[in-house]
């Protein structure tokens, strides 16, 4: 065999959790055992690649034989031998393990800019990035363009901050460029804290050099000579890959003194976050780097004027920076050809929850929400009914089914009471209780509130208390109005983005699912059957076969009944754990 063989194995956090490194070992072993060594090994390489999006089907493996690519899904180590034997040696791909139609459908409507190389290149090897045009943008910028030219391109491209606020990146750079100061900083904000979001982690794990290249270009344009990447300690793999990438960049003279032989010095340090959600807010992030409690301060002055140690500081999100090299390489017009009039380019979303194809996606701004859910996401899991999609994490809102046709961009989502945010998208189905979802987010924001300003510290606590009482059946008349009132106050008077947006999940769920709140308060019922205190379990006599399965699993011996006779649940003993509901094969346990 003298054919070129390339094997690519997904080794993002998702891939690794599904057993990516074991699969890789199996491939290495099998190649050795099968004696595909002498001439093949020269042409053959095994690469680890970053996340390619469809984490639900991990471990994903590409076999590229003579330039023909076959992608396999759900690969386990024991399957490797057959793949090597039938596909690599005999040239017949193992069809039954190959990806199916939904894998292609998942990718068809996506447009990849930031993720274009994620999942294709080896994130731990700079050569791999250089081979696909990596650092070309930096070379172009440093050798032929002034900072002003660069800023002009970024402005023209229409790139806006991808961390959530959507501030035009070029404008931010320009302000910083115009500041006169002996010292300026650029910070990459990788403190991705929204529950249900993993875009930044995947970008760093899949293509760390793009972020670094973007940062160097940002530093050149703004005049910063020191950079920080502030990254969550909960992302060990991303930190490790970033460290490796920084070292490689230094060795290749992309970082350090006199970069690429020009009079331009810049280096990047990694700062590990210490576990505080509020540190994603830029002034809190700065406080944290300075070694203080990570509490925000009032703005203005904005960090571009007075930031880290009182010096002008540009703070950009990971995804924003990773876009920069691609914009420089392909031009501002190319980038702004995607998207809508006001929201240009593409956006990475983490599509999760009750959706068939959950994973990482990149779509042009302005794509209808329906296409994301049904075409890319493949619809709702287990054929349940779609109820809502939650965007923007704890700062965002829920979008109900009748608004599925809205476009996904900064303005349209804001209009319906949600936000694009950092890009989390959690799909909810008929079994999710919206009051409970609102409570979930408030629990999060309440515990993450730094406590500096009163509206947020006490307001979120009071909001949570009201939600807790509603979900445990003690809701009072007027609670909905009280929630709305208080929510608007917290929004209007909080110091930073955390408090200003924390009530959004409540306001948007009340706006679209007021009836669920009312059912909890007046009827003391949870329509979705989630809130435990409002539930009761009963045996539906006509379906009960008397098999005793429920009786056996009941932890509180609340179920009685003879074999083959209809069973009964004693409501006084029932602890509402739901074990009987899950154990019954005949759907004879009803909850309501």
């Amino acid at each position, binding site marked *: 065999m003298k054919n070129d063989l390339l094997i690519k194995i997904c080794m993002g956090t998702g891939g690794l959790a599904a057993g990516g490194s074991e699969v890789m070992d199996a491939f290495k072993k099998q190649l050795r055992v099968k004696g595909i060594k002498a001439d093949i090994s020269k042409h053959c390489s095994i690469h680890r690649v970053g996340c390619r999006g469809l984490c639900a089907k991990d471990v994903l493996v590409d076999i590229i034989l003579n330039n023909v690519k076959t992608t396999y899904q759900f690969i386990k180590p024991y399957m490797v031998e057959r793949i090597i034997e039938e596909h690599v040696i005999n040239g017949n791909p193992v069809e039954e393990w190959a990806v199916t139609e939904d894998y292609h459908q998942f990718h068809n409507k996506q447009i990849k800019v930031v993720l274009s190389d994620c999942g294709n290149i080896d994130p731990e090897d700079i050569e791999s990035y250089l081979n696909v045009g990596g650092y070309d943008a930096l070379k172009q910028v440093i050798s032929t363009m002034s900072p002003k030219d660069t800023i002009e391109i970024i402005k023209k491209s229409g790139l806006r901050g991808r961390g959530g606020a959507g501030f035009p990146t070029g404008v931010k750079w320009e302000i910083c460029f115009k500041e006169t100061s002996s010292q300026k900083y650029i910070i990459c904000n990788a403190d991705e804290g929204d529950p249900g979001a*993993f875009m930044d982690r995947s970008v760093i794990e899949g293509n760390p050099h793009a972020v670094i290249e973007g940062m160097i270009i940002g530093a050149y344009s703004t005049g910063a000579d020191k950079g920080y990447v502030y990254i969550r300690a909960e992302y060990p793999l991303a930190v490790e890959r970033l460290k490796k990438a920084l070292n490689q960049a230094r060795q290749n003279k992309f970082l350090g003194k006199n970069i690429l032989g020009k009079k331009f010095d810049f280096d990047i340090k990694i700062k590990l976050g210490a576990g505080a959600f509020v540190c994603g807010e830029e002034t809190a992030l700065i406080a944290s780097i300075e070694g203080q409690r990570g509490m925000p301060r009032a703005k203005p002055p904005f960090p571009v004027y007075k930031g880290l140690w009182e010096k002008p500081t540009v703070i950009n999100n990971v995804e924003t920076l990773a876009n920069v090299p691609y914009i420089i390489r392909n031009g501002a017009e190319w980038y702004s050809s995607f998207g809508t009039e006001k929201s240009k380019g593409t956006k990475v979303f983490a599509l999760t929850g009750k959706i068939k194809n959950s994973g990482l996606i990149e779509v042009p701004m302005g794509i209808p929400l329906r296409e994301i859910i049904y075409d890319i996401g493949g619809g709702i899991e287990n054929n349940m009914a779609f109820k809502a999609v939650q965007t923007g994490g704890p700062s965002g809102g829920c979008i109900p089914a009748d608004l599925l046709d809205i476009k996904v961009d900064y303005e349209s989502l804001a209009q319906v009471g949600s936000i694009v945010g950092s890009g989390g998208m959690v799909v909810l189905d008929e079994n999710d209780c919206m009051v409970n979802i609102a409570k979930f987010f408030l629990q999060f924001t309440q515990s993450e509130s730094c406590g500096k300003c009163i509206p947020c510290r006490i307001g979120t606590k009071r909001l949570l208390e009201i939600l807790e009482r509603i979900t445990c059946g003690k809701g009072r008349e007027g609670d909905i109005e009280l929630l709305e009132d208080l929510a608007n106050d917290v929004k209007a008077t909080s110091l930073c983005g955390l408090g200003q947006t924390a009530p959004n999940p409540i306001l948007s769920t009340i706006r679209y699912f007021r009836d669920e709140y009312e059912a909890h308060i007046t009827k003391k019922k949870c329509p979705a059957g989630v809130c435990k205190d409002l539930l009761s379990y009963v045996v539906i006599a006509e379906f009960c076969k008397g098999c005793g399965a429920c009786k056996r699993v009941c932890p509180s011996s609340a179920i009685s009944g003879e074999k083959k006779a209809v069973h009964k649940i004693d409501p006084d003993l029932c602890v509402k754990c739901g074990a009987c509901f899950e154990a019954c094969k005949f759907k004879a346990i009803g909850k309501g």
Partner: protein
Amino acid sequence: MRVEDLDVNEMIGDVGKIICEHDRKKGVLIHAFQKIQQDYGYLPGEVLMTLSKKLSLPLAEIYSVASFYKQFHFSPRGKKVVRVCMGTACHVRGAKNVLNALEDEFGIKQGETTDDLAMTLETVGCVGCCGLAPVATINEDVVGDIGKKKLELLVKAIKEEEK
């Protein structure tokens, strides 16, 4: 790291040149905590006192910064740290059940450590593997898609390492 050997100027690097001494000392605090915790597994009181003397910063100030961040702990932790993800995706896919099951199994509540210091049970906001929800991590390994079967395996994995 021995706190006595801590070199503020080296730890803070070049930026130290432009800030005053007090800011420099404060600037290394979080970094120092991370190093201490790496060695001891937590931030022992007497080490923080040494740090306070070394940096001439009041212990109260040191404690105020350390206690702000969830990452830092003031009591010893288990050999295995199990974190159950409570992110949105995990929440709607039954993270609560996973947590309850582990709490029952090991007889500790979230945030607590077993008496033999074998295991600490915690929750985490989001580990960013939402595609595999519900998820838990044992030290740095991620376990995904935790259904009933996987839960038993998870418990087994935790116990195995305890020996």
